[in-house]
């Protein structure tokens, strides 16, 4: 049977979880050997991606993307982090910032397949649609 990327990532996580870093190293070496044996080395990048997702999920880490029109100051970033932490019940929030002038103002928060659109542009579109009606 074909083993999916998700299954690889999950088994790697289960093998590593709760081990010291030296122990983990051994496990990873073995894991790579297994991949080579099964001719799945080409999938390594995808497995890593999936593993990071899994790790973050289990440890309550949220990697969110925040897009804004202008650079955000520290105060705002802190507030945003608290907001996101509350939204997704996260212990730790990692934010990657992105500047997009087209938004005009406000922020868009993206996390996995969820989007909270708080940009001025979206508000204006909404207002326009309402007034046309």
């Amino acid at each position, binding site marked *: 049977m074909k083993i999916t990327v998700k299954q690889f990532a999950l088994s790697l996580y289960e093998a590593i979880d709760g081990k010291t870093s030296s122990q983990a190293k051994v496990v990873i070496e073995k894991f790579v050997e297994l991949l080579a044996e099964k001719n799945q080395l080409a999938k390594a990048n995808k497995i890593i991606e999936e593993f990071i997702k899994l790790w973050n999920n289990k440890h309550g880490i949220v990697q969110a993307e925040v897009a804004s029109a202008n650079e955000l100051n520290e105060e705002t970033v802190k507030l945003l982090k608290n907001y996101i932490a509350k939204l997704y019940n996260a212990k730790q929030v990692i934010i990657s910032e992105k500047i997009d002038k087209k938004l005009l103002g406000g922020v868009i928060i993206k996390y996995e397949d*969820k989007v909270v659109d708080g940009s001025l542009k979206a508000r204006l579109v909404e207002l326009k649609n309402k007034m046309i009606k």
Partner: protein
Amino acid sequence: MTFNLIFMSTTKDFIVEQLKEQITNFKTSLKEQTVGRVIEIGDGIARIEGISEVMMSEMLEFFPSVKAAEDKKAASGSVYGLALNLEEDRVGAIILGDYLGIKQGDEVKCLNKILQVPTGNGIIGRVVNPLGEPLDGKGEIQADKFYPVEKIAPGVITRESVRQSVQTGIKVIDAIIPIGRGQRELIIGDRQIGKSAIAIDAIINQKDQNMKCIYVAIGQKESKVAGLVAKLEQSGAMDYTTVVLAGASDPASLLYIAPYAGCAMAEYFLDKGEDVLIVYDDLSKHAVAYREISLLLKRPPGREAYPGDVFYLHSRLLERACKLSQEFGGGSITALPIIETQAGDMSAYIPTNVISITDGQIYLMPELFYQGSRPAVDVGLSVSRVGSSAQTKAMKKVAGKMKLEAAQFRELAAFTQFGSELDKDTKAKLERGKRLQEIFKQGQYSPVCAANQILVFFALINGLVDDVPVEKISDFETGLYKYAAMFGAKALKEITDKKDLSEKLEAEMKGLIQDYKNSLDY
């Protein structure tokens, strides 16, 4: 002039005031949305990553990326889709509309609602596509409500047996294969032998019968539908009819949802306690469209390459035709599905499926059609399983004998082909049968009202037309209608109102027909 200026400035102020008010009252709330990305697109099918919380048959919104949209004239907006395959890490969706602008990586939004169509009194007299968007250029549809396209059919508790008839205005059908309100009667036959014509005649005859009609054209040539709409308009049938059109050039996704959308529109009237007649023209093209979608979604093919759930595809649609009991409003949906056979092959997959689902079928025979007996209904193979209980007493009285005569004639006609000497009795039966066949002939777009039908059948079974030459029957018939309208209006009215034939009335009818015959020169 000055007045005009003042007037203009006040309207300007008024508009500004209104704008200010709207903007100050404008409230927004932040909402979390689930989005995904297109990872594969083609043939009207998209595979999407993300949207982890999508429901089955949920509406999706695609945003064709700006660059692709600019090339096309429709730069305006989004395209809707429908999630059909929920797999482990991706979603298979069909795109309802133009999918050429969408490309890999485009954003997809969940709309958190099952696909639904606008319905209400505003759709009557309109031509719409399966999404309820107007196609007739008569402006926006004024929808009272939105109804979900897929709905579970009414249950046993809410139903009632069929007891009121649908007058199709086609003599052979109303007499031999009667249809009741809430029945599902299949019209089946080869191409080009008048399947749609029967359905259209039935729609035209619903005038003043307290019926709403919905004609669902699936994969039909748009020229044919345009001609049909013109015909319906001309005969005044568009006052109570809606045409749902998924043309031959529309993507398979629209063809697939068309009958369900039509049924959803009908359910609005059902819930209001009204009677609806819905024609699905035709379901074989619908099955083909569904096969296309299923194969593209990589569902395993079965017999004739149709997917495994092709039976459920039609059974869930036709189960929605029903007669509700009085406590639940007493409305009904009568369905006339149409199936096109290939070279008369009734035992193909889709025809056998639909025959087993429906409450009877009207079988059209190519031989009869080319012999000139139109509508080419084969009385032997056609049945109606529930409709006879819906016939009026008057019709039952005349039709019962006619069924017998027709059956005897068929038997004898086959037998006498060997050309042996015939006794007097057999000859008389054959002659009667020929006249019966002649009476069943009827032109397109010329429905006959129930009272006239009963009158002419009454004449036949009582031997009053036995001395009319076979070639003259159709003249005799049209003349009789005219004569009866002039001199027998009272008798006709009594037939229509009482729905039964008393002895006195029968004598009156006999006298009327005899008087008419005396005025003829043959």
